[in-house]
């Protein structure tokens, strides 16, 4: 019966003290926030504007119009590329989802033998370059120089080529096996964090094992599966290297290979390229929006869930089938491509068969010995540039990521919401699309044709990956730890340096290595923004593949792969097993 004492209604005057606004915290976060906003938004606006500019027949003047879009949807070549892109993305999504879900289930929920040993290998393709994968599979299964085809011929006497990856199926195959880990990562986390009592309840009501898996387990991880599938679809739509290597030379163009020809080369038309980029970007951004706003919030398993010990299913004799299946995947996705590339790289000329007497390391000298006058500049430049870009880019991107995460999680108001939004946008646009935007924005500035434009493109596109790494830790660390430091007399910057950053250290380092890996293999941004002298590793591989021969290409590919594998080992040491499966 306590009587209510009503709170008096007070007219609150808006805070007036603008002079009190100038604190370290406000100044630094505002500057970084503005830089991020400009870096993300300006290229996209430039892309929109340029897509409505039509180049005249002489190629000098432009006028406003919709001609570019008409060309995309009605022009014979580009329309076919659009259809091919849709086919590849759909096919790859189906293949990668089937592979990813089945492998995740085997590793997380069955008693498949050696699954702890196999799991890291399932994730290796995630870190490697799909472009290199395509080169490897070209050498494994193209009709003429394919190692597998030639082995089939010499061992079984099969005269016609058994495999042919120089078509859309080949692109689907390579992207499918390389993007399966994306689905795997989404699903395996969900499977591991699932409350086992959900399944136990089904079992106690009389549902069998199979039925429980089908009616309880799989439906519970459906949001994770859908999220993974969408990411794969979007990634494939923006994938440049694989179709460029496998299908484009044989008449199967995709939108990305078409954008590339419009960005560089003899019939460059940035305006048409911008329009094509817009089409890809609108579709991918829409899918990412669906994933973020509709699917992810419906996820049944939460990150903050307790550490459950999931139910393991005894497969009985079938466990060896599961093991074989998993081994097969690791073979076609990791071992076979790397071994094949290695053998190709040891030949001076590759004819589709291993000639033991002619093995040589000569190709490695040509592509790695940058001090050697006869080395190939595009390749050696690429190595040096890529390490500069990966080191500098990862470092700057992580600084940006820390400040952005800080603003999102530790400040309130418009700035925090804006940045939260801004750090999703780059994920929605494939590298090649964003690079097209960066190209048309900065082509008339001094940073064009320097490493800076590449750095800008890399950071803009990929800082959200670092930001997610930081954010997940920042959400788990109490804000009061920072505030105690302020109360003890430390300034905002001192607190950041002595409390916040040390607490985030594991996340910062894991994020840094992840970005380092991504930058070291980056192709679709680099291919648009590079120029003579600013080649990157993947551009070097592209150059060798286009203008030199397969053995040299393979040699540089192996060099890149080894560097990436070293990073994976470090990443696993630093970030721990669960780091990626959040």
């Amino acid at each position, binding site marked *: 019966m*306590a009587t209510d004492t009503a709170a008096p209604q007070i007219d609150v005057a808006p805070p007036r003290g603008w002079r009190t606004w100038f604190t370290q915290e406000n100044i630094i976060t505002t500057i970084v926030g503005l830089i991020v906003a400009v870096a993300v938004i300006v290229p996209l606006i430039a892309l929109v504007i340029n897509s409505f500019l039509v180049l005249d027949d002489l190629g000098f003047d432009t006028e406003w119009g919709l001609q570019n879009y008409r060309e995309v949807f009605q022009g014979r070549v580009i329309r076919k590329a659009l259809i091919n892109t849709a086919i590849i993305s759909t096919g790859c999504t189906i293949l990668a989802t089937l592979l990813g879900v089945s492998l995740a289930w085997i590793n997380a929920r069955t008693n498949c033998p050696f699954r702890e040993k196999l799991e890291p290998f399932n994730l290796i393709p995630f870190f490697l370059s799909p472009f290199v994968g395509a080169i490897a599979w070209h050498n494994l299964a193209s009709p003429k120089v394919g190692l597998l085809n030639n082995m089939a011929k010499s061992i079984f006497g099969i005269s016609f080529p058994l495999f042919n990856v120089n078509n859309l199926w080949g692109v689907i195959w390579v992207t499918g096996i390389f993007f399966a880990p994306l689905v795997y990562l989404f699903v395996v986390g969900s499977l591991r964090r699932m409350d086992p009592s959900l399944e136990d309840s089904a079992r106690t009501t009389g549902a069998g094992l199979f039925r429980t898996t089908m009616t309880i387990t799989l439906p519970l991880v459906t949001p994770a599966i859908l999220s993974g599938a969408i990411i794969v679809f979007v990634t494939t739509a923006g994938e440049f290297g694989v179709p460029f290597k496998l299908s484009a030379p044989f008449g199967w163009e995709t939108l990305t290979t078409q954008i590339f020809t419009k960005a560089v080369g003899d019939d460059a038309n940035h305006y048409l390229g911008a329009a094509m980029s817009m089409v890809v970007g609108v579709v991918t951004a829409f899918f990412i929006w669906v994933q973020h706003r509709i699917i992810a919030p419906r996820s049944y398993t939460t990150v903050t869930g307790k550490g459950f010990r999931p139910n393991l299913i005894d497969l009985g004799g079938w466990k060896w089938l599961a093991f074989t299946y998993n081994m097969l995947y690791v073979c076609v996705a990791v071992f076979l491509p790397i071994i094949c590339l290695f053998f190709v790289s040891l030949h001076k000329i590759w004819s589709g068969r291993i000639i033991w007497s002619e093995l040589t390391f000569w190709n490695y000298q040509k592509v790695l010995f940058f001090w050697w006058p006869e080395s190939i500049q595009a390749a050696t430049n690429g190595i040096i540039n890529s390490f500069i870009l990966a080191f500098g880019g990862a470092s700057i991107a992580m600084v940006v990521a820390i400040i952005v995460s800080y603003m999102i999680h530790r400040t309130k108001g418009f700035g925090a919401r804006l940045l939260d939004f801004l750090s999703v946008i780059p994920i929605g646009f494939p590298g090649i699309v964003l690079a097209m935007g960066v190209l048309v924005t900065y082509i008339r500035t001094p940073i064009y044709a320097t490493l800076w434009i590449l750095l800008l493109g890399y950071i803009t596109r990929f800082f959200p990956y670092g930001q997610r790494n930081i954010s997940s830790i920042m959400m788990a660390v109490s804000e*009061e730890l920072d505030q105690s430091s302020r109360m003890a*007399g430390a300034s905002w910057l001192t607190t950041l340096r002595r409390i916040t950053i040390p607490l985030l250290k594991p996340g910062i380092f894991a994020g840094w290595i992840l970005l380092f890996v991504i930058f070291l293999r980056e192709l679709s941004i680099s291919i648009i923004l590079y120029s003579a002298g600013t080649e990157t590793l993947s551009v070097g591989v592209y150059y060798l593949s286009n203008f030199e021969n397969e053995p040299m290409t393979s040699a540089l590919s192996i060099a890149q792969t080894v560097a990436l594998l070293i990073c994976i080992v470090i990443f696993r040491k630093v970030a721990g097993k669960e780091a990626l499966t959040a």
Partner: protein
Amino acid sequence: MSFVEIKKLVKSFGPEVAVAGIDLSVEQGEFVTLLGPSGCGKTTTLRCIAGLEHPDSGDIQIEGDYVTSVSNEVFLTPEERNLGMVFQSYAVWPHMTVFDNVAYGLRIRRETRAAIKEKTTKALDLVGLGHLAERYATKLSGGQRQRVALARAIVYNPKVVLFDEPLSNLDAKLREHMRIELTRLQHDVGITSIYVTHDQTEALVMSDRVVVMDKGVIQQIGDPESIYAEPTNAFVANFIGVANLMEGKLLGHDGELTDLEIPLGDGRAPIRLRATGAEGAPVGAKIILSIRPEDILLHLEKPAEAMNLIEGEVIDTVYLGNFLDCQVQVGPHEVGVQIDHFEELDTGQKVYLSFTPDHGLCLTE
């Protein structure tokens, strides 16, 4: 001018007014507790003092200097205020040792190595953690972390120490222990303290003065005895201890005493009672009678003579160890009675309640 002066403090979060114009002064060396239910604005008030929130309007002065003044555009950052704060989550930095945690504020203040060593050791000894100086915070128990947080907050001799529900994460026994220890420490060090809690026992045991808050407004300020014995309104009476509150009508004043009647409804005659309080209220005014469960006597037989006799029926009894908690139905009211003589009481049994006039307090709205 008091040591800490808060004037007309207002803070809202969007449409929600958390603190609706608070005036409060705290003397040097005083231990003041802000007490109230969650959402009453006590923590927001504390965070405004700390500089962790920007108030919408109002002034805060410490030692005569403005630390926050919205009208004068003064806002000192938290680190410029020289305060200490103990957080609910302890917020002991896990990447530092106990010693480094406590020494942090001294290092920020660029004290000499020797001074840091001496002061930190002294503070750690004060909270009884001298032997754990080199241990990492992650290896400590909740109570130990609490002590680290405390040592860290007082080591650089801040002007005021702010406590944000520091004991709420401890288990009951440890909480009681820490309560005593904190009080002793505060008296020894003599540091000005502002303490936020929702636990009335904590507030009553530890404070020099208690500030009861609800809905962003101060309901009553006073020393623990007066808050408990003389609540000024129904909210305070109900929140501080469990009080029986019954609505009634004032009939008249008789010197110190007040006559009143409580309607029972259903056509039954109202009961007439004598109590204290509501001195200024006119005859016929609506009042609320507050009686604490431990001040009510329960009789099995109708006593020959007793003041304020009320008839009722037992609804429920709960055995609570050292006493029995008995609910008695009186008309529409459920009256809680605490008894320490353990009679057999059956549900539905008729009993008689009585209390002396000085235990019944009339409150006006």
